């Protein structure tokens, strides 16, 4: 298994703050593990903004004005 880089302090701090903002009580070990991959994840997400053809695209989100909730078990 390839060893992952040790994250810098700022990255660890960013990840810790984001998790805390979402009220996720991650341990120090979990924060560190997520911080190790965070720079790569962040770069790949940032790349979504420069994907070809996407500048004026509508998102694949759903919204139906007349939608109602129907219980699957009823």
């Amino acid at each position, binding site marked *: 298994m390839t060893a992952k880089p040790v994250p810098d302090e700022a990255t660890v701090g960013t990840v810790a703050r984001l998790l805390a903002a979402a009220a996720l009580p991650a341990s120090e070990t979990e924060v560190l593990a997520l911080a190790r991959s965070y720079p790569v994840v962040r770069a790949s997400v940032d790349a979504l903004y420069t994907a070809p053809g996407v500048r004026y*695209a509508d998102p694949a989100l759903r919204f139906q004005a007349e939608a109602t909730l129907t219980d*699957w078990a009823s």
Partner: protein
Amino acid sequence: MSDLPITLSDAAAALRAGTVTSAALTEAAIATAEAADDRIGSYLARMDDTARQAAATADTELAAGVDRGPLHGIPFGIKDILATKDAPTTAQSLVLDRSWGAGKDAPTVARLRAAGAVFTGKTTTMEFACGMPDTGKPFPVPRNPWDTDTWPGGSSSGTGSGVAAGMFLAGLGTDTAGSIRIPSAFCGVTGLMPTFGRVPKSGCVPLGYSLDHIGPLARSARDCAEVLAVIAGRHASDPDSVDAPFEFAADSWSADLTGLRVGVVHAGHFPADSDPAALTAFDAAVAQLAALGAEPIEVELPYWTEMRTANLVTMSCEALAYHRADTATRWPDYFTATRAMIARGALVSGADYVQAQRVRRVAQHAIGELFAEVDLVACPTAVVAAPRYDELTDAEGNVDIEEMFTKVHTGYWDCLGNPVLALPMGFNAVGLPLSVSLAAPAFGELTALRAGHAYQQHTDWHLRVPEIAAATVAA
């Protein structure tokens, strides 16, 4: 080794020919589970008593000329994130409220029950259909019947391993980033992720609302078609489901693929650390399709990298939204790998989520253009076989699957919503299964299933049985 049929289709024919009974099929399935499940971990809950009752009813009905269709009397496994009225639903989690879905059938389960399927039990899943097993939690660790030191794939682990081991002839799985196709690949069985919306997903504990698919795992493409025909069709409770029932006539399927244009994907799919057998087996599978008349055309998948990212962003954000009510107070009760997946949803913004959906839209358009040029796309489901559990553990003892997922090529298709059929295509040097995927245009399952059926008329990879099953199944 039993001489009972091992495919759903053969069993259905034998039931109608009177050469086997549902009771016999069900007893064999129960005997296999009794002999092997403590080593494989396919089941979270077995339903031996109700299965025997359902089998007896099926035999009585069939004898009286009441025929509910090809699934009537067939032993069948249900992944334990789907609600069933006669067994608990746990999502293999300490966190899931046990009152959720209690006493109710998910629409897919209700359709299977009406079709006479004999439910043998609820099968193991990664917690909430994501992550990896956690030995610190009170649930079975699913193991691969081809080598119990290896992972059977997930998250539909128990359905894949159960079909491979002969604990049932078919089962339901779900797929958000590969959870039908990965266990199909690693366990050497056939799995179908239907088009998003073809099968209603209500009554299933959600992982990613816009990514979740419910579909079959079975021995063969034809078996998958039989299951899809039962579970497909709109249900008012799922706003994503569409009025697109699936109908087919397998008797008219031929092994002649003349005129079928098959896009073949190598680019980006075979990193240097792939199992060398994967490329050999994949090229052989493509050659077999060509020998049947198909025209291979080398293609590249548009937005390949972006869709893998969009899958992770979408899944983690939608999962965090679902779980946020529990994470603050139940964090230690979640599996370690589930926590990591959910937490990733907090590391991206709302705008990032919307941007992922914008790229999905553009990629959908691009894949539609590709499917104007080809009828199917063939690619390896994964370019590794089932990994050993000890290979998935890092230096600190934590399970780490990120590296393995660079060689598993499934999440791309969940993001697009196209149907994908995963078929066994051979074995690697140590005897572990390998798999080829056939992707089709939206609602083009029939094309993929017909091609898969043709391929399986000329190969027998899907009929291979692991030693653990061959040694335990009694006649």
